[in-house]
């Protein structure tokens, strides 16, 4: 399927401003060509960004859980490129690439990883909880499959609000064994909601092989349990991912058809920066994917074959590295959140301070400060 959809597109070499959904200017129905050079720019930016994040983690500028998607850039960029500006995106915790592909500035993402005020989640979320509501990115979530029911609700709201859009919900292969997967897909099915469940099958959930965890390892076939379309695509082929995503998103938008798209990919790093990633797979396997199936190398090769000039390709990497360096500089310069803002955002209702104003008596130490900061007399 992947191969049949393959096209190189350097003949008409568009260059949209900055990075962002490449298809935003294309027509609704006919599968448009992907701007492969632009896709390469995004993949390269994501790759270099995550390699930098890895370095910064080792330097303890980044903490907590940090999940890199190095090797999965083709899957991420191909799918996001098929989204329109009005579409919504919800993902798991492995989310750096999604924010960047959707157009969030590297500065805002790196600042979030650094836990700074100017981070895309104001430093409150960190690596797992990036978001960009302005671009329809409703967050990276940390509980396996927990984001699926939420994505269903976002699609439900779109239908109720009569917006013609699609919701992309990314999850991993390990998430398809959670009950939330079943309930979410069943609801999407009976309510006919415009949501595409984008399963990134990278072969493992932490150290567990798909075959060991899932009684139906061909995950896209599970869509049938909900009379839903299920497809599988080569995730290292950014054009194939784009074409498959485009078709399913289009059907979701215009016919409210939910679907499952299983994207076959591979994470070249460990589960998180804390995992060497070699206890449960061979070095040979990793090298095989790195050498033969790297989505960036594959795309570059196609562009070369299509006659793109070498200096143009060099520029891609140069520009990406410059953007990453700028992001680090920006993150370093951004202030750490002040402890006096600890209680900001616990609640959103303007009356909250008043509501809590009578709670002070007998409060434990841990709460008294929060009440004070919430503007409730303690």
């Amino acid at each position, binding site marked *: 399927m992947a191969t049949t959809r393959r096209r190189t597109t350097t003949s008409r070499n568009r260059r949209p401003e900055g990075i962002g959904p490449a298809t935003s200017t294309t027509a609704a129905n006919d599968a448009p060509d992907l701007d492969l050079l632009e896709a390469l720019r995004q993949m390269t930016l994501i790759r270099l960004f995550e390699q930098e994040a890895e370095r910064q983690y080792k330097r303890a500028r980044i903490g907590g859980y940090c999940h890199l998607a190095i090797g999965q850039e083709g899957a991420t960029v191909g799918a996001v490129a098929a989204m329109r500006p009005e579409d919504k995106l*919800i993902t798991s915790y492995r989310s750096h690439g999604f924010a960047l592909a959707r157009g969030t500035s590297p500065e805002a993402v790196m600042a979030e990883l650094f836990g700074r005020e100017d*981070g*895309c*989640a*104001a*430093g*409150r*979320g960190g690596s797992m*909880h990036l*978001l960009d*509501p302005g671009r329809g990115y*409703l*967050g990276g*979530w940390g*509980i396996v499959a*927990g984001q*699926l*029911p*939420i*994505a*269903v*609700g*976002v*699609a*439900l*709201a*779109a239908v*109720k*609000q009569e917006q013609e859009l699609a919701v992309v919900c990314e999850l991993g292969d390990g998430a398809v064994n959670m*009950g*939330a997967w079943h*309930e*979410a897909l*069943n*609801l999407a099915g*009976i309510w006919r909601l415009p949501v595409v469940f984008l399963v990134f099958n990278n072969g493992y959930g932490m150290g567990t092989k798909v075959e060991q965890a899932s009684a139906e390892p061909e995950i896209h076939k599970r869509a049938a349990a909900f009379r839903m379309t299920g497809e599988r695509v080569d995730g290292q082929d950014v054009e194939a991912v784009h074409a498959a995503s485009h078709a399913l998103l289009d059907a979701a938008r215009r016919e409210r058809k939910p679907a499952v798209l299983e994207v076959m990919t591979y994470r070249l790093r460990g589960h998180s920066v804390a995992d060497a990633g070699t206890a449960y797979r061979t070095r040979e396997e990793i090298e095989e994917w790195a050498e033969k199936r790297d989505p960036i190398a594959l795309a570059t090769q196609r562009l070369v074959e299509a006659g793109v000039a070498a200096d143009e390709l060099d520029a891609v990497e140069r520009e990406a590295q410059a953007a990453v360096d700028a992001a680090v500089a920006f993150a370093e310069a951004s202030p750490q959140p002040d402890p006096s803002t600890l209680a*900001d*955002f*616990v*609640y*959103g*209702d*303007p*009356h*909250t301070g*008043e*509501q*809590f*104003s*009578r*709670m*002070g*008596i*007998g*409060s434990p130490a841990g709460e008294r400060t*929060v009440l004070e900061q919430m503007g*409730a007399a303690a």
Partner: protein
Amino acid sequence: MSATQAPAGIETMTYREAARLAMREELERDPSVFLMGEEIGVFQGSYKVTAGLFDDFGPDRVMETPISEEGFVGAAVGAAMSGLRPVVEIMTLNFILVAMDQVVNHAAKVHYMFGGQVGCPLVIRTPNGAGNQFTAQHSQSFEGWFANVPGLKVVAPATPADARGLLKASIRDDDPVLVIENLQLYKAKGEVDTSVDGVTEIGRARVAREGDDLTMVAHSFAVSRCLSAAERLQADHGISAEVIDLRSLRPLDMDTVAASVAKTNRALCVEEGWASYGVTAEVATRISTGCFDDLDAPVGRVGMAEVPMPYAKSLEDAALPHQEKIITAAREVCGA
């Protein structure tokens, strides 16, 4: 039903009708409000709280769901993040256990974790309580767990007026709010002023009965138990008990409680659930520490017997925090 025509002026209606009236009024007032839940449509609600609303507002505003609490509570979170105001019915509190992750680790986290950029104006209404021989899996009252979670608000109406007023306030609140109703209270009657909007502010306790010798603090159905116990205490033992209806567990109105204890110097906390590590643990601690110098005796606590609720009537009766237990505990606190 009288409630559903909502004529002007004071009306006597059941707690069930009052909750239904609140939903009707909010559905009419705000197009972004919609109801979700199992059997709330053609079945008219497992406990008939939503009766008639499906017929009047249709399937888009009153959405029947499959048995998938985790799924539709999560869907409500997503809808709330998108600007709608879902009001979810969980048939009874017991069933929220399968949706715990969406309530505690998703709804409660949205606003903070994302730096205040996305809100979650979600309401979950569900009845707690025992007393119908529903046995161990269907007789629980662990609402205190949610009151432990920053990011959530928890209210528990004890009267028809508050069943309407607190639900309306919760629906209009921009944060996720759990509204704890009660199976025994559904049939309880009371006055509701339908001529006014009738919103009960979240975070204000109510003095349900005035008294001088003892402060009884409770929420939900335990308030009714305390009120009848108070009558008996007065009549049989000459103890004048003040009864505080907390109304809200998070936030908690300690000012009202402390003012009462300052007057009575004695306190008894009562709840339907298990008292150890329950709601009364928090309330009694705050009284004990916040009113340290005012207390003439240790704060008392009464809850359900700490067993999984048995089926046999003889055992269930023995397990409930009934009037006799409250009176005994009250006399203990009063040294009478």
